[in-house]
């Protein structure tokens, strides 16, 4: 078959919502876009472990400590599924790491903000995982099979994390004045970065159209952002917290909340490396990797020795 025919067949499958599988023919650009998207997501899981790991040793109760450990472990697991999904597209996990460490590959910019109080563990679960779920649930129907299946597992756990985060916020909001202050302070710091998680506005989003065509993206950035605001504002009200946006108000006519302008200068600043923790996060990943080199080498050497002995 020539490429045109293959491409036609591929497009038909996409249109009929038939999953593309690793052995199927796919356009090179589709493959590359998927690798970028899935690895970026995998990197986000891995880098995203760090801001939360920062509070595990200081978790204020054993129950919360255990939950935090389990959550970070889940994130590492998500990283694993997603790297595996990515590897079905013919790339190697180590090469993906190299791109992360060199700064070539991106990860969700939200993890470049610091976790400053215990309430941030609540806010991240509630807002950051909440936003992630908005982004990810539609991807359970992504056109690429391994990706869609990974997302099903991820989303199930994420929504558990989201409820857990909300429950941390709820406990704080029912607590002492200092605890309430912590909760409000965390909302103040995480609200806008969470809105930024959906990416640039539709008019500035360069990949959206093609990705939607390929069904590896199902809604536009602005649609998802609006949905997030609509869902989250009533949750904040329930907590008795104030969303830090003076322009926020319900628009009866639209049936949606109107909200203020995002500080896109900050967004692009953080993406381009000037966030509060960009260097710290990459440095942490790199030094884990570099300090682990001798361990990986040892494991390989031992496996070889063992295989040789078996063969002899």
């Amino acid at each position, binding site marked *: 078959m020539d490429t045109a025919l293959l491409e036609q067949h591929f497009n038909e499958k996409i249109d009929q919502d038939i999953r593309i599988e690793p052995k199927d023919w796919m356009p090179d650009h589709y493959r590359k876009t998927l690798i970028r998207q899935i690895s970026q997501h995998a990197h986000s899981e891995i880098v995203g472990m760090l801001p939360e790991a920062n509070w595990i040793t200081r978790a204020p109760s054993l129950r919360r400590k255990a939950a935090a450990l389990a959550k970070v472990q889940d994130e590492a697991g998500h990283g694993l599924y997603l790297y595996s999904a990515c590897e079905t597209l013919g790339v190697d996990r180590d090469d993906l790491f190299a791109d992360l460490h060199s700064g070539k590959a991106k990860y969700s910019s939200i993890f470049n903000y610091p976790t400053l109080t215990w309430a941030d563990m609540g806010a991240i679960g509630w807002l950051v995982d909440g936003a992630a779920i908005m982004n990810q649930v539609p991807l359970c129907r992504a056109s690429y099979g391994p990706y869609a299946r990974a997302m099903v597992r991820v989303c199930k756990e994420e929504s558990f994390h989201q409820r857990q985060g909300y429950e941390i916020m709820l406990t704080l909001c029912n607590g002492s004045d200092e605890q309430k202050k912590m909760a409000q302070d965390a909302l103040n710091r995480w609200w806008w970065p969470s809105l930024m998680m959906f990416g640039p506005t539709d008019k500035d989003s360069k990949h959206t159209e093609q990705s939607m065509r390929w069904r590896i993206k199902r809604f536009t950035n602005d649609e998802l952002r609006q949905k997030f605001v609509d869902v989250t504002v009533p949750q904040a009200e329930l907590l008795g917290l104030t969303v830090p946006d003076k322009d926020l108000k319900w628009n009866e006519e639209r049936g949606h909340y109107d909200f203020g302008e995002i500080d896109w200068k900050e967004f692009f600043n953080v993406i381009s490396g000037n966030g509060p923790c960009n260097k710290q996060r990459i440095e942490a990943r790199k030094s884990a990797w570099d300090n682990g080199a001798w*361990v990986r080498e040892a494991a390989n050497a031992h496996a070889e020795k063992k295989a040789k002995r078996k063969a002899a």
Partner: protein
Amino acid sequence: MQDQNKFNYIIQQADNCLILGQRLAELCGHGPVLEQDIATTNISLDLIGQARLFYQYAAELQEEGKTEDDLAYLRDAWDFKNVLLVEQPNGDFGKTIFRQFLYDTFSCYFYEELMKSSDERLASIAAKSHKETLYHMKWSGDWVIRLGDGTEESHNRIQQSVNELWSYKDEIISVNAVDQEAEKAGYGVSLELIKEKRNEKIKAVLEEATLTTPEGDYAHKGGKEGTHSEHLGFILADLQFLQRAYPGNEW
């Protein structure tokens, strides 16, 4: 207090679990391989889980209306009865592994015996924990072998850790008054029995790992009586900070 010695006996092991779990939690997100990051986090989680079961039971025996968190967060360093081994710093991956292996080769056989405790609650906590610990010991033992019989660098590194940690090996199977009374009363175990099985296991793994057993059998002690290393104070400063800074809250 129903039974002070039983309380003390439980606290010893609860503190071992908590402090080692806390040490491993420091590594979260910093492992040499993603799979091993998951493994250490998972072991940390198991240990915190075991600590909770023990503290909950201890708090009940105490009959002062306290909770697991009161025991973990509001005792002072000298009240902690964990062995010095578990408070040693993580060091490199080899040191983390060998510390874990020395602990696992205790806890695995300890729980195996404790499952037969005359105290049903202890027996049931032990049964649950034993399953987890079997997996931990397999994991840490395999890594001792992998690193020992891996590259020259890994061999030298883990041999270094073996040498460093050797004097922290035996406190955990040394018998104090609490252990004695616990064994006599039937809810505690014979550490002598555990010692034998453990030494055999350690010997076998070191051998397979082509590692040299250090000479000298000097054993650092103190932890089981509440006299710790300089590390514990810093561990508790982080662990307890929020509860100390904002006392009396729900979290």
